[in-house]
Structure formats: C-alpha cells, structure tokens
C-alpha cells in the first residue's frame, strides 16, 4: 500500500546499456512510480527508458546530475509524491536496498542517506579518498559530519523535498543537499548500502574525478 506514494527518481546521462536493467530491477520490487530524467544524452537512453513504460522526461541539452534530479523531484511533487527516492542510473546502487532505506524513513527521519563507506571494500581507492576529502570539507563549511556525502542514493520525506532548495546543477548538488539538511535542521540517518562497482560504472569519466572534485570545491566555497 505505501509503495503507491513513493516515487523513484533516476537521473540518466548516456546510460543506454544499463538503464532498462536498472528500471526493471526496481519494478520487480513492486515500485511502480518511476521517473527517469534523461539529461541530454546523445545515445539511446531516452528511447530505452521509454520502452520500460515508466515516466521519462528529457533535457534537450545536458545540464548536470543535480539539474536532472531536481527536474525529477519537481515532476514527482506535482504527481503527489509523499516520499521521493533518488538513485544513480549506472547500476551502482543495488535496488535491493530500497526497502531498507524507505523503512528507515518511517522511523521518523526526514532524510535517509545511503552510505557506501561502511561497505567500501570494493570502492576504488581514489573514490574513497575523494569521498573523505569531500566529507571533511562539508563538515568545515556546513558543520555536519556525514560518512558519505557524495552518495546519490537518498530518500526524502515530503517535508524534506519541499524544504530543500538547490541551485547547483552538477555534482556539487550532492553536497548542496547536505548544506540544506543542515540549514533546515532536518533529521537524517545514514544507512549502509551495497555498491556494485563494475568496469562500466568506474569508467565514467564525467563522474567524480579529481578535476571535477576541484571544480566542485571551488563552487562550494565561492558561490
């Protein structure tokens, strides 16, 4: 019954090889309200997602992960969502963790953050270092310690997604959400999640590389 008002938002960019698999995995768990936002892909991501009979919206030019998630959240909000879940389109996040994440929200939290850190044995070392650096910077800037500030697997209550207002369009979005959590004093909990690091997902050069990390840091401090 409660699965009716839960919307899953997936931001996708050039994920034609995995997007249908990710969507079908979520559907098998009984979640039917799935929104995919194609962020200006130049492959067949949009067409492949459409074939799975879920809601698909398309940015006609690439605006970034944060922008795509926000588009999906706006759509979910207009469709009457009570709970919104965001997760990555590259198959990194295991949808089997969905039930656990949603149930944690029902314990009275506003936001549930999926944490890869407690299960980081397969995480590339560069990613671990990047995450820890980001966590430290976020703590210095916003006064909130989070074990995995860069995880895109999150669950938001209605209170949270209506209060959180983000302006960042790209990978700084994940950090900006932490800032909003601190600003609005939203209650949150971190839940360990499984991570599936495949050759495919680790080869994504436009994800959190060192250069992107520097750009992200400058944007967080300067704007």
């Amino acid at each position, binding site marked *: 019954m409660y699965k009716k008002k839960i919307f899953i938002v997936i931001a996708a960019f050039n994920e034609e090889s995995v997007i249908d698999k990710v969507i079908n995995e979520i559907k098998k768990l009984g979640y039917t309200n799935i929104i995919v*936002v194609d962020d200006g892909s130049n492959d067949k991501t949009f067409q492949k997602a459409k074939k799975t009979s879920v*809601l698909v*919206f*398309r*940015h*006609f*030019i690439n*605006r*970034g992960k944060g*922008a795509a998630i*926000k*588009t999906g959240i*706006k*759509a979910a909000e*207009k*469709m009457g969502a009570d709970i919104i879940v965001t997760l990555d389109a590259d198959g990194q996040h295991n949808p089997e963790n969905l039930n656990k994440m949603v149930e944690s929200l029902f314990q009275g939290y506003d936001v549930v953050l999926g944490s890869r850190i407690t299960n980081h044995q397969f995480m590339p070392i560069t990613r671990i270092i990047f995450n820890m650096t980001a966590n430290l910077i976020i703590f210095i800037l916003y006064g909130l310690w989070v074990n995995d500030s860069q995880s895109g697997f999150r669950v938001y209550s209605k209170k949270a997604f209506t209060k959180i207002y983000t*302006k960042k*369009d790209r990978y700084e979005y994940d950090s900006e959400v932490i800032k909003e959590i601190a600003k609005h004093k939203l209650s949150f909990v971190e839940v360990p999640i499984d991570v599936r690091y495949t050759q495919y997902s680790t080869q994504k050069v436009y994800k959190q590389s060192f250069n992107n990390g520097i750009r992200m840091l400058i944007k967080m401090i*300067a*704007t």
Partner: protein
Amino acid sequence: MFNLSFYQLFLITVSIFFLIKNMAKFRKNLADRSLVRFLLIVVFWLCVLVIISFPSFAHLLSIKLGMGENFNTLIFTVFIINFIIIIKLLASIENLEHDITELVRERALSELPKYYKNKSKTTA
C-alpha cells in the same frame, strides 16, 4: 627623441596592432558589437601605449593618486579591481546557467500535464 628599448617597441607594436584590429572588427560588424566593450578595449590598449611610451607617466599617476613613490601599490590595486570584476562575472555566469537550466526544465516538464490526466483517469 624617443629612447625606446626593444621591449617597449615590441609592446607598442602589439598595442597598435590590437587597436587597429578591434577598430576594423567593430566597423565590419557594427550591429553585433557592443559599443561599451569596444570602448573598453580601446581605452585599455591606449593606456598600455601611453604607459609603455612614457614610463614616467605611470610614476606621476601613482603620486597623484596618493600612492607616493610606490608604483607597486598601483599595480596591486589594479589586480584587486580585476579580481572583483572576475568574481562578478562568475556570479553573472552562474545566474545565466541557472536560467538556462530553468528553461530546459520547463520544456522537459511540459509533458507533465498529460501524465496528470492519465493518472486521474486511472485513480478515479
């Protein structure tokens, strides 16, 4: 009359070159070029010309502006002004990026009302 070093001659040549180039571009694309931008470029290269040709002028300017004999203070002040301009430009770019995203989002979500109707039909 002018006792100019090779370095000064080189910079004077470069300044005159860019002045002529910009004037020609402005004349050619009169409708597309911003007058303010053109004037700023001309003023900049004229200042470079004057300061390179008459180095004592910069020293005099520094004294007139109350920085005394310290020409470095004038250069430092110019750096700070440039830094402020860059920060303001970055803020403008950020705002423009935000506006572009809003437009892209609006277009993406223009399909949404169609899903509303389908949903209200199924839940009715």
